[in-house]
């Protein structure tokens, strides 16, 4: 297909999502329609969108003006390689999630499911429109629709007060961000022309106003992405939402913010400055470390995953920041590499975080618990989920040969281009950011050893004298549709990890279309087997050979040991250094892992711990770890708002004539102002 028809087809797929959503409202006595037909159809639309996006990444861009919208301000659509790449991400991840959702929502009542179906598909369609939008107006409409529909999805269980307040927090930060983005568009506009992206691109901004626009956009998109200190909604909203929705929000929605950042910075504003890159790097490094350190001390599985989303956004920002620094100093090849690494990680994170959230959903569905301290031994009850979760856990821990490693490897390679830079301070700082990344990667590995080891391995844990919750409820592995969704995303982890070269070429095309510069020719000539970012003598990586050698050695060793010796096995109780009276309560808990980290990184956490005294009749132990940002940023802001509101409340008199007087005075004031 050529690009205009691809754009039309993508539009059709997005509209199909809207239509599917509306079909969900058809009153039905059973939820079978939505489950059996609508969600799978949505998955198909997602697949189609992914296919269109993948093709569009290789074609010149195409645009389209819809006869919709305000008079004089029709909707502009455009499909260029960057949009194509993000459509690929959105389509492929949402396909897996939709299939999973078809199985996951089996116990919902028909009415509720219809509503969820509507909100879910409107959410998907709005994300597609965010990516396809080519004017600020449509972009903001889609952006706000996305925020609203996801808000309703988060508050699906709106009868619980905790979930309502989580939703409120989410909505508030989302709107703060949207406001900043709106202002950014206003600044970029520069007072001339209309608000189509073409006009914004053409606007000639002075360095000062360009920086203002960048800062506003960075803040606005950062609020949606979950960078510190605007991350507070993530660990609240993700656990509140149903798991497929968490998977979509964490996997795809926060990526639209990355899309927005890349679009605005590289495309609309242009002329990237290295100072911006340094800001992004500093925020990114802070976000990365903060996210992973707080993830390590969580024991609520979904909250933990949410903090890891914060961390991964930080990693993506590190890639973007390095790219901006290199572009700013005039090293486009290194800059393109950084951009590619960031986008690659965006895709990777979407896939493995989607997978992990779905896995968490299966655990929640099967056992009814999110608390890691009450889990254990789930691998025996749900071996299939356990396998897919392991794939996701290894991928997010950046272990070769899965996909998380590839993008971190590319980021390290970008950092190793630092000697190109002329500025001494920046040159010495870039490797420090790489060190942050290395530290975060290793901490993530620790965190997922904790998650996997505690949830799936070992024995079920009992809690407060009650019988092990996991053992009581868990009896079911995931259903067929859920398995299919999990398998799709797990396969994504393998494909993106084992065949990175083709993805690299696609992303190079995306980067080239945005910035006009790509990787060196040597890098592009390498075969599909090898991943070469600069030139073969400098760095290369071949995940396939990597995997093949390890698998071959494993198989040969198993065979040889059997042949030469024997394969006899006896099963016995665990030895445990000869200690008698082993109970399941003696296993490590999630908090035990956190405690070790708390010792090393003590000052970062706000820990409130209550230890029982020796003579307590009813000894109780409690541990609460709070986010310092609440006390540093949010509560002061909340107090200030409250204070101002009290002052403003003086205006509220309850008499109509007073209010009319206010309006009258305002009118007079405005007339004086515009005179």
């Amino acid at each position, binding site marked *: 297909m050529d690009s205009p028809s691809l754009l039309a087809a993508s539009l059709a797929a997005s509209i199909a999502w809207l239509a599917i959503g509306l079909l969900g409202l058809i009153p039905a006595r059973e939820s079978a329609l939505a489950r059996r037909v609508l969600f799978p159809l949505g998955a198909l639309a997602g697949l189609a969108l992914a296919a269109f996006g993948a093709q569009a990444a290789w074609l010149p861009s195409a645009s389209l003006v819809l006869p919709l919208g305000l008079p004089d301000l029709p909707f502009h659509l455009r499909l260029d390689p960057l949009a194509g790449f993000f459509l690929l991400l959105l389509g492929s991840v949402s396909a897996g999630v939709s299939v999973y959702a078809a199985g996951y929502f089996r116990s919902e009542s028909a009415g509720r499911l219809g509503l969820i179906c509507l909100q879910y598909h409107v959410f998907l369609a709005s994300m597609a429109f965010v990516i396809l939008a080519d004017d600020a107006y449509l972009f903001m409409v889609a952006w706000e629709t996305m925020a609203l529909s996801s808000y309703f999805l988060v508050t699906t269980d709106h009868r619980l007060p905790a979930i309502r307040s989580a939703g409120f927090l989410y909505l508030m930060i989302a709107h703060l961000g949207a406001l900043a983005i709106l202002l950014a568009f206003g600044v970029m506009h520069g007072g001339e022309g209309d608000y189509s992206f073409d006009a914004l691109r053409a606007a000639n901004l002075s360095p000062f106003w360009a920086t203002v626009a960048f800062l506003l956009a960075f803040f606005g998109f950062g609020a949606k992405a979950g960078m510190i200190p605007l991350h507070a909604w993530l660990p609240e909203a993700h656990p509140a939402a149903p798991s497929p929705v968490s998977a979509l929000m964490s996997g795809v929605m926060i990526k639209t913010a990355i899309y927005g950042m890349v679009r605005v910075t590289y495309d609309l504003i242009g002329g990237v400055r290295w100072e911006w890159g340094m800001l992004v790097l500093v925020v990114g490094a802070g976000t990365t470390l903060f996210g992973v350190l707080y993830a390590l001390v969580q024991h609520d599985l979904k909250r933990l995953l949410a903090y890891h989303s914060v961390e991964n956004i930080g990693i993506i920002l590190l890639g973007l920041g390095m790219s901006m620094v290199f572009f700013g100093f005039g090293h486009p090849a290194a800059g393109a590499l950084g951009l590619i690494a960031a986008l690659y990680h965006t895709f990777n994170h979407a896939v493995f975080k989607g997978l992990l959230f779905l896995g968490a959903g299966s655990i929640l569905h099967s056992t009814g618990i999110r608390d890691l301290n009450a889990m254990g031994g789930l691998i025996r009850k749900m071996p299939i989920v356990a396998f897919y979760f392991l794939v996701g856990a290894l991928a997010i821990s950046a272990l070769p040969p899965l996909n998380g490693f590839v993008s971190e490897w590319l980021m390290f390679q970008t950092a190793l281009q630092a000697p190109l830079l002329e500025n*001494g*301070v920046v040159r*010495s*700082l870039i490797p*420090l950011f790489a060190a942050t990344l290395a530290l975060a990667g290793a901490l993530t590995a620790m965190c997922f050893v904790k998650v996997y080891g505690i949830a799936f391995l070992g024995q079920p844990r009992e809690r407060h004298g009650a019988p092990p919750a996991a053992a009581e409820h868990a009896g079911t592995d995931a259903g067929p549709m859920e398995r299919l969704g999990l398998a799709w995303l797990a396969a994504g982890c393998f494909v993106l990890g084992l065949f990175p070269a083709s993805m690299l070429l696609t992303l190079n095309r995306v980067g080239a279309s945005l910035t006009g510069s790509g990787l060196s020719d040597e890098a592009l000539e390498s075969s599909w087997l090898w991943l070469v970012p600069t030139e073969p003598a400098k760095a290369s990586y071949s995940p396939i050979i990597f995997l093949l050698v390890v698998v071959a050695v494993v198989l040969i060793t198993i065979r040889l040991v059997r042949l030469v010796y024997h394969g006899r096995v006896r099963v016995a109780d665990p030895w445990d250094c000869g200690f008698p009276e082993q109970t399941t309560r003696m296993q490590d808990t999630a908090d035990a892992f956190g405690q070790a980290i708390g010792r090393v990184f*003590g*000052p970062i956490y706000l820990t409130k711990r209550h230890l029982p005294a020796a003579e307590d009749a009813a000894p109780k132990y409690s541990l609460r770890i709070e986010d310092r940002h609440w006390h540093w940023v949010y509560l002061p802001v909340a107090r200030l708002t409250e204070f101002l509101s009290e002052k403003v409340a003086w205006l509220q008199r309850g008499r109509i004539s007073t209010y009319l007087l206010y309006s009258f005075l305002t009118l007079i004031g405005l007339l004086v102002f515009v005179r």
Partner: protein
Amino acid sequence: MSEPLSSQFVNLLAALLLLLAFAMLSQRRVLTLIKLLAWQGAALAASTAIVAYATGQMHLYFSAGLTLVLKVILIPWVLHRLIDRLYIRWDVETLINIPTTMLTGIGLAIFAFSLATPISQMASTITRSTLGIALATVLLSFLMMIVRRKAVPQVIGFLAMENGLFFAATSATYGMPLVVELGVALDVLVGTFIFGIFFFHIREQFDSLDIRHMEKLRED
């Protein structure tokens, strides 16, 4: 790779100096601190001797010898006597925890390096690239004086700072005039003795060498 071997050795010793400065920053024991100070002095003497050899400046040989006698043998010996007499071979505490101190130290090192780069491009000595390291050593020793609570480590920090200054002088201009150097050396020696005497007085007064007690001397 075109640099002469002597210059490479000086670079190596400079790196060692920086390494020792960081080691001092992270070291808790007084005894080890004194040993590290002696090693720093030795590295300084060696590098001065190499510069002297490479440039043929006789007075640098002299100052190398002076460094060796004073900073490797005499002052560490005095300090050893001192901590024996004061019975303080125990751990020293630090105000901030060590990783934070070290991170601050790295920040200071980057700052020093960036500050020194333009200066070292102006200098014409064979050792110009070590100027940043010298500056970093000075700043790190200063940091050490700030974060330490006990009096003896503070004095060690002071002496390490003097080492850094000396190294800076050597690397930037092949050393100060001999008279100045002699004067500084004498000052340092006398300073150490005076500090030693002061320690006894401080301890007599407060029963401790923790300098937080000095806060009590403030007029309210």
